[in-house]
């Protein structure tokens, strides 16, 4: 009673703080804080999304016509380019004339886009500022680029991370479930006591190995293996991650599934055998349906382990935040992203908030999976199998 209450309150608090930190992202400006993006007064383009900004500054977009403006080549200007346009004398001894110079440079170049700190914004600035606007939920949830250090506007599109997580986890479950079920059935139904006495502690030992060790194992064994077998330039792929995750999820799946299979009453098993059913028919038609809810629990716990696992995945998946098109590409999962980037994200900053929001997403994904599994198990009550 009390412990249940404490647990619920703790979970609620975790969720509350996660969301409170994360939701601040949508109130933050899209352009890096303290900076402005300015264009020539004549330019008709008023609004640029973070993705467009990044493409412009990466020179992927070279002409304003691509952005709905006039046919004018884009000239990118960063603050340290200033000496190409003006002499040191013009900047002044203590660089006190930078604002005036900036204003002048922008006025002279119709195709220019400039990115500089807002402290250098002169009161009579001759250029036009690109609209300051906040990061939208659409950019966060549907954005297909995750580039938190991009300038002038960091990109927080979570699609590559979510797809990466799902790819790796689903593949891991696809590997782990058949194997885990097979071992569970073998241990619960077929093995004799001697084999079981050896197997059970070994499997439990597997559950106790720290995930860094799994990651290390993956790095030295599985990654090179995958690289060789598939002839890839790098072996650090989603496949490597899912194989490691499958191994890590196995003990949970085996233990929970085996327990539920063992809990099938002996009388029901005997009833089936007494009717002339073979052992295999009994397992397939009576034992497994009877233990379906336990098996569901095993699946959920296994997926939970796989989705939330951080370290091992971080070490073997290659960590490139690109939407994966197959298991043989490097991916980056949500937990790995949080772990890798939280250290370099300034406390309270946009990046920091984005990582917290990622945590929320992870929470929602696992919640959805458990609810689905719960409903699947409930939709098939034992009585009606």
């Amino acid at each position, binding site marked *: 009673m009390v412990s249940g209450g404490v647990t619920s309150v703790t979970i609620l608090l975790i969720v509350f703080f996660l969301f409170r930190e994360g939701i601040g992202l949508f109130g933050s400006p899209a352009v890096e804080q303290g900076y402005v993006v300015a264009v020539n007064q004549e330019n008709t383009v008023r609004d640029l999304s973070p993705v467009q900004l990044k493409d412009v500054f990466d020179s992927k977009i070279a002409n304003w016509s691509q952005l709905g403006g006039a046919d004018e080549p884009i000239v990118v200007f960063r603050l340290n380019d200033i000496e190409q346009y003006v002499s040191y004398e013009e900047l002044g001894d203590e660089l006190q004339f930078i604002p005036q110079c900036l204003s002048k440079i922008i006025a002279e170049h119709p195709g220019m886009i400039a990115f500089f700190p807002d402290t250098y914004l002169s009161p009579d600035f001759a250029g036009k500022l690109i609209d300051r606007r906040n990061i939208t939920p659409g950019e966060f949830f549907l954005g297909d680029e995750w580039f938190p250090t991009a300038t002038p506007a960091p990109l927080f599109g979570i699609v590559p991370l979510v797809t990466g997580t799902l790819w790796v986890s689903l593949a891991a479950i696809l590997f782990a479930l058949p194997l885990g079920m097979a071992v569970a059935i073998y241990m619960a139904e077929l093995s004799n006591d001697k084999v079981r006495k050896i197997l059970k502690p070994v499997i439990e030992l597997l559950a106790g190995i720290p995930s860094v060790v799994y990651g290390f194992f993956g790095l030295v064994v599985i990654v090179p293996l995958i690289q060789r077998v598939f002839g890839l330039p790098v072996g650090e792929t989603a496949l490597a991650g899912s194989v490691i995750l499958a191994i890590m999820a196995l003990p949970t799946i085996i233990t929970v599934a085996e327990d539920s299979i063992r809990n099938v009453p002996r009388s029901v098993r005997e009833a089936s055998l007494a*009717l002339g059913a073979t052992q295999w028919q009994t397992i397939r038609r009576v034992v497994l349906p009877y233990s379906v809810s336990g098996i569901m629990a095993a699946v959920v716990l296994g997926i939970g382990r796989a989705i939330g696992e951080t370290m091992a995945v971080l070490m073997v998946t290659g960590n490139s935040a690109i939407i994966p098109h197959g298991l043989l590409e490097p991916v980056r999962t949500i937990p790995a992203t949080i772990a890798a980037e939280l250290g370099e994200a300034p406390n309270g900053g946009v990046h920091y908030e984005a990582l917290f929001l990622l945590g929320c997403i992870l929470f929602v994904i696992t919640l959805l999976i458990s609810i689905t599994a719960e409903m699947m198990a409930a939709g098939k009550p034992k*009585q009606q199998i």
Partner: protein
Amino acid sequence: MENQTIISAQGVNFWYGDYHALRDISLDMEAHTVTAFIGPSGCGKSTFLRLLNRMNDLVDGARLEGRILIEGEDIYARGVMVDELRKRVGMVFQKPNPFPKTIFENIAYGLRVNGVRDKAFIESRVEESLKGAALWGEVKDKLKKPAFELSGGQQQRLCIARALAVQPSILLMDEPASALDPISTSKIEELIYELKTEYTIVIVTHNMQQAARVSDRTAFFYLGELIEYDETKKIFLNPEKAQTQNYITGRFG
């Protein structure tokens, strides 16, 4: 043929690990009779019953000596298909143990695991079996309902029907009425009486009156030994052994 021996145990010894559970049991049972096994708890009567369809195979460390012949065939001989044997020797357990399926599927199960796919055949066999177990009238409108919705007595008759569906020649019953109320018990007893015409029935019971009412012959087990085996009338009215007399009259056990 009348008075044909269908089950024959010859010098059966049985161990659970080190525990010598049955000592040198020999007895013959005739077709279309009801044989009751009586005796105090732990005397080995259930163990012996479960030897007849090799249910004790599931127990680790079980060991058998001697021979058990069913319809003339040694069921513990090498190469005997256990699942085939169990189709011929059906079993009803102490507690009703329906599958977590519908009433219909419970009965159909035995046919399905035997590879029967013909729907019409399964349906007619289900009806036949439920009629045979005197349950048809009560469940014919709710065959699609879960078996767990039936009462305990109905569940037990469902289990009997389930055993009948595969058409065994022998039906083993391990205290089939011990978990039931008196009305359900009397229904099961009537059923046993009717089933006798088609099946050979072996029943383990703790209830002396029940043994006296339903069986043709009675075997009294004590501490793993077969003390006395004779016509039920004789066992109850005029037993040869003092132990039997004492047990039946309730002086020990």
